């Protein structure tokens, strides 16, 4: 599923006063696949409708996926009574499930009752010491309690064991960014890029972090990563194009024109300028091209 799939089904539903089971089901499935957090407006509203009017038409697996999805969304927007009803139904159907216990823990977390939640998670870990879900919930709880540094420490210990857990590395990278621990954030993205070297969001994020760190060495590396994204996206990533320009403008030791190894470095910003202007001319809102031209002018790189 793509974001535009989500936008399509979202628009379809907005105009529809009596949406069909298929539409509601598709919407929730798209949200699950894209892992969007659209709790109030959509998941609670459409999920409740699906369960209320169409539950008999749902396959067993989907029925309980939707229960879980709507329960979490309900917790997200403080609808504790509704969440409790859903969680009780799940508990009845899956009495020994770890996944169900996670929901119970989240029920307490959402209300700020951290001790009750922690008890559930620690029990889960006693039963299954390698239970990833419980470990991650404990990290999330630390974060909710305002202890971001503690949460990052705990998550760091987790990834030392579960080194191939991408979601965990991403989360840790974002936590370090929030803590302004840029080198550590960079390290997380280096790990992610080891696993998935052509993932554009990772390449961009890594470049962004290096740029923020600053210094000629980091800036050069950032520029190389932005350039890689330009390559992978056929020049259509505004972030990467701007990134190249900003890096080039920020790097303080200029290269010798004669050196053929660095010719690419000289041509790169010019090409980026051209690609950026083309992108804005073709797609930008009215008047935006002029603004971009201003940015380019002020960065000292004139469009040829």
């Amino acid at each position: 599923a793509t974001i535009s799939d989500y936008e399509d089904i979202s628009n379809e539903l907005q105009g529809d006063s009596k949406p069909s089971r298929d539409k509601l089901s598709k919407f929730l499935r798209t949200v699950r696949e894209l892992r969007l957090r659209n709790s109030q407006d959509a998941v609670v509203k459409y999920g409740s409708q699906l369960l209320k009017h169409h539950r008999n038409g749902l396959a067993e697996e989907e029925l309980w996926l939707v229960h879980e999805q709507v329960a979490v969304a309900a917790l997200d927007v403080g609808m504790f009574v509704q969440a409790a009803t859903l969680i009780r139904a799940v508990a009845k159907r899956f009495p020994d499930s770890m996944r169900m216990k996670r929901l119970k823990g989240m029920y307490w977390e959402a209300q700020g009752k951290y001790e009750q939640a922690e008890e559930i998670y620690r029990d889960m870990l006693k039963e299954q010491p390698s239970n990833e879900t419980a470990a991650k919930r404990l990290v999330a709880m630390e974060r909710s309690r305002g202890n971001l540094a503690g949460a990052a420490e705990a998550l760091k210990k987790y990834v030392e064991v579960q080194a191939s857990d991408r979601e965990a590395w991403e989360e840790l990278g974002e936590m370090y960014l929030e803590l302004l621990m840029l080198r550590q954030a960079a390290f997380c993205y280096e790990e992610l890029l080891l696993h998935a070297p052509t993932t554009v969001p990772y390449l961009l994020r890594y470049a962004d972090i290096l740029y923020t760190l600053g210094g000629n060495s980091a800036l050069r590396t950032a520029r190389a990563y932005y350039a890689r994204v330009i390559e992978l996206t056929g020049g259509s990533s505004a972030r990467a194009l701007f990134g190249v320009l900003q890096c080039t403008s920020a790097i303080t030791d200029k290269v010798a024109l004669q050196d053929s190894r660095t010719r690419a470095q000289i041509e790169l910003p010019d090409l980026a300028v051209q690609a950026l202007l083309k992108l804005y001319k073709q797609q930008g809102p009215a008047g935006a091209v002029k603004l971009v031209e201003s940015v380019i002018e002020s960065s000292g790189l004139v469009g040829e």
Partner: protein
Amino acid sequence: MVQSVKCELPSLVKVLLHAAKYPNVSINGLLLGSIEGDDVKVADAVPLFHTSVNLAMQLEVALAMVEAYTKQSAGKLSIVGYYHAEARVQAADMTPVARKIADKISSKQSNAVAVVIDNRKLETFLKGDMSEHPFDLFTKDGSRGWRREPSSQVSVASEGSWQSLQTAFASLHGQQVHSTLVDFDNHLDDVSKDFLNPKITSLASLSAGLKQRA
């Protein structure tokens, strides 16, 4: 020494819609307007980020683009402030990055302000309790840094009021307008999206029953 901060209703509506669109992450943006002596007039808000709040590259690009935009206004508009809302429910305060950004703005515009949303006050305000508005004000005190000012210095300009702000926001939120708000992060992902949000400016003015300014 800032004495008053008068905000046109659409500017605050945009700030609230930005917060409503991304309730679980930190968001920030710029305030545009003019400053006459000690009186700050906020005419518009430009939502900036929800995923890149601590990153420098896109911030620099955004500042340059918005500055270029204000230059087109022949002196009517300049960047007069910065706004910020944290993800967690907590009292409002300036984060290190917020201070950095606000410093940058302040270096080009004296008496620039920083507005931080207090999430607890936001909750009660949106529920209809007008006793406290959620916009905490900070100004720069020379070398001492950013310090909190009395909330009473912030008000809704023209014929607006805090009640009319809450009503306008509630109306637009009910119509899902917040999902159409474009911040600079959205713009960078798809340059066809306009971070100046002209439609929302009109909608906000209409919602509050204000007459369109020429």
